[in-house]
């Protein structure tokens, strides 16, 4: 067993035993999606136009919620100190964190997304929905990780976190909602979806390295 597995397992187990985000976030997603028809009245037309944005916001929130606590526990109780002194590279740890975060906050939403899209009256094929939700949730997670690592040691960490993460999330949100929207119309240009994948292709390899550097920087 190496770092990566160990970290991932630890995070997943901790969540499973205690936080239950793995259950909370899908439930949250479902409930939020349920709230919209309630709030907007059962007017299918309105619901349909609002749906892409709403689905993306729900996904955004699901990745955002666990962020604040992501590294804090490991920082406070000294786990990160131990990791600095580990013979295995620290990037294993950050990769493990990212994977666990996505498994908890991304994967369930990806799986649910076609059903949710249907419930909100969108008429999109499920492979297309997945093709949008996979990069979008991954991007939310990756960007969130960087912001979390960045704001970790800072005074007013979470204020920083909020200020950092929201601007970075906006493009993903816009392209994601845009992609969902376009797919639904007669004219399915795949532009926004490609943007998402391009963003992912760039962010995915960089994130573990960046977070590792940031974590090292935070030590004192």
């Amino acid at each position, binding site marked *: 067993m190496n770092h990566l597995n160990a970290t991932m397992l630890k995070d997943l187990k901790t969540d499973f035993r205690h936080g239950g985000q793995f259950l909370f976030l899908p439930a949250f997603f479902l409930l939020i999606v*349920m709230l919209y028809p*309630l709030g907007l009245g059962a007017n299918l037309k309105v619901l349909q136009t609002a749906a892409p944005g709403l689905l993306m916001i729900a996904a955004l929130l699901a990745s955002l919620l666990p962020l604040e606590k992501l590294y804090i526990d490991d920082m406070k109780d000294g786990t990160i100190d131990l990791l600095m002194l580990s013979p295995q590279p620290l990037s294993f740890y950050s990769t493990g964190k990212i994977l666990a975060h996505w498994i908890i906050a991304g994967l369930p939403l990806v799986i649910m997304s076609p059903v949710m899209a249907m419930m909100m009256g969108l008429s999109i094929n499920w492979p297309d929905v997945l093709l949008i939700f996979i990069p979008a949730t991954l991007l939310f997670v990756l960007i969130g990780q960087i912001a979390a690592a960045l704001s970790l040691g800072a005074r007013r960490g979470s204020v920083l976190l909020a200020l950092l993460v929201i601007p970075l999330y906006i493009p993903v949100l816009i392209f994601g909602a845009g992609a969902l929207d376009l797919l639904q119309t007669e004219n399915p240009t795949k532009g926004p979806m490609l943007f998402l994948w391009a963003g992912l292709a760039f962010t995915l390899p960089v994130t573990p390295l960046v977070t590792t550097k940031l974590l090292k920087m935070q030590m004192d």
Partner: protein
Amino acid sequence: MFGYANPKKYKTLSHYIFLTAVILATLFLGFGLYLALIASPPDYQQSETVRIMYVHVPAAWLSMFIYVSMAVAALVLTIWKHTLAGFYIRAAAPIGAAFTAACLISGALWGQPTWGTWWVWDARLTSVLILFFLYLGAIALNNAYDNPDKGNQASAWLVLIGSVNLPIIKFSVEWWNTLHQPASLTSLSKITSPGIHPDMLTPLLVMAFGFLCLYGAMVILRLDNEILGRKIHVLRLRTING
């Protein structure tokens, strides 16, 4: 009244209630199903699908009835601290959830042919869904503590707070104009002249009573289990001690 809130006295009584409930449930459900599926006429608008009603409506009534009974138990538990009330909540919640699920599922099945959709977000349907979540919450709280008494208390609070949902379910069809049928049977104003044909009313009432007896039997079985479980918990602590 609280004489039987003592688990021991309760035990002797429960046996007889259980037997009667099982017998009544078998009789009424058997007869009710015969009436519902064979003897009653198809609806002039809905033809055969109307038979879903004989499951749907009793399930809907029971889902609310059970919640009310749990709310009463919750009140008893929080005010008079009677342990048995806590056991009752624990025993009733999963059954209530099952009946609510039955109501939702039968409603959805019925909705497809009549409204042309499985699900709409109207107030009645949504409030029943909320009821279902409340049941799940109560079950989850019951099991979320190491100390089962804590679980019961927490769950009792949730049930009490959640009971604001009941009037919303009941009156949703009147407060909001929705797809769903307004109550024709249980509405106060119409009590003198039920707007439902007696040929359909009789099987409905028979089924409803059958469901109620079934519930009675199940809840007593589960209550017995809860009481035994508690005894085991205490015995365990004692025996370890030698």
